[in-house]
């Protein structure tokens, strides 16, 4: 019995490590729009990994593994944000401003690409939670059908919302560029 438990744990560890290898980079990118501070990002990643480890024992393959991983990751991230409360949201706004000013500095100083990524992340972070989730999944390369499965929406709804969010991101980016040109 003890040996069987050890074997089960070992096989679960193997599965988990494969899962982290496959989705690790994606999780890292994802947490960047929920937390700005590196140490908070690390905490959130750890929370997600623990939830995935615990949930793996319950995963029955009713959905694709990737769908399940994204569901767990986003649900943990949403819960994490809600648990931080409004006081922390104010801190996040402050952090967002800091990020923005850092991005502005980078514009002048160095890599334009780096700055563009920061700007994109800042705009995504400013979106309401469902739109944020939608756009992150899209940027990770999931199809509308896959996003629909993760979010529990219809594919049509996903496409419509995606068009709207992309337009919103485009407007935000244009507004910033125009502000920079004027200043």
């Amino acid at each position, binding site marked *: 019995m003890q040996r069987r438990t050890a074997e089960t744990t070992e096989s679960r*560890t193997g599965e*988990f*490590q494969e899962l*982290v290898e496959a989705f*690790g*980079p994606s*999780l*890292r*990118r994802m947490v*960047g729009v929920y937390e700005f501070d590196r140490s908070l990002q690390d905490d959130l*990643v*750890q929370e997600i*990994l*623990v*939830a995935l*480890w*615990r*949930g793996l024992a*319950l*995963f029955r393959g009713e*959905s694709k593994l*990737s769908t*399940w991983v994204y*569901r*767990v990751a*986003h*649900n*943990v991230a*949403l*819960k994490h944000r*809600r648990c931080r409360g409004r006081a922390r949201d104010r801190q996040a706004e402050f952090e967002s401003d800091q990020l923005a000013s850092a991005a502005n500095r980078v514009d002048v100083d160095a890599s334009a*690409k*780096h700055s*563009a*990524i920061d700007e*994109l992340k800042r705009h995504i972070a400013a979106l309401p939670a*469902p739109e944020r*989730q939608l756009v992150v999944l*899209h*940027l*990770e*390369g*999931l*199809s*509308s059908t*896959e996003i629909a*499965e*993760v*979010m*529990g*929406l219809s594919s049509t709804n996903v496409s419509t919302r995606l068009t709207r969010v*992309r337009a919103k*991101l485009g407007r935000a980016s244009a507004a910033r560029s125009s502000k920079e040109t004027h200043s």
Partner: protein
Amino acid sequence: MSHESTHPDPLQELWKAQAQIPLEIDMNQIQADAAALDRVLLARDRRERFVAWPLAAIFTAMATWQLVSGNTLSSVGAFIVVGSMFWILFVLRRFGPRSDESAALGLDGQAFLQDYRSELIRQRRLLSLAWLWYCLPILVGIALFNYGIAVAKGQDLGQWALSVPTLITLGVFLAVAALNLVAARGMAQRLVELGALPAKD
């Protein structure tokens, strides 16, 4: 994962061009954190029982002793307290907050949000009605128990009602009920933010 379009999306390219911070995992740490969480959940599940069972045992002994001493009123009061303990355990088990949400975390976004809202609504209801299902039965039991003892000492209703133990008991339970109502109000605010309650609620 698949792209629907064969045209590369510049935003997607930009997104994926982010500098990669390697995701280092420490399996021992993850397993230790998961085990710690399991212990917390188990303790939370058992906490009420740890409190209720000894209190139920004490009040059963007191009820029996009062019954043997011929103080029926106090005995009934003590039995009401014992009954209340089991009633509270039942309510918490049946309607209380769910301790482990591992399964819920695997739900799709809409279902998870719905589940989260339902959980908050249930908790809010439980908190706002704590005066009824939690405070009132125990208060009635303790009041009856104390009154039986006061009568046995020759005090009348007025003296008993204004006695220090009665006022302290009442104060404690009023405070518990008030704290629960405040917590319920805080939860209502979170529900408004989630769009599960109208702002005026």
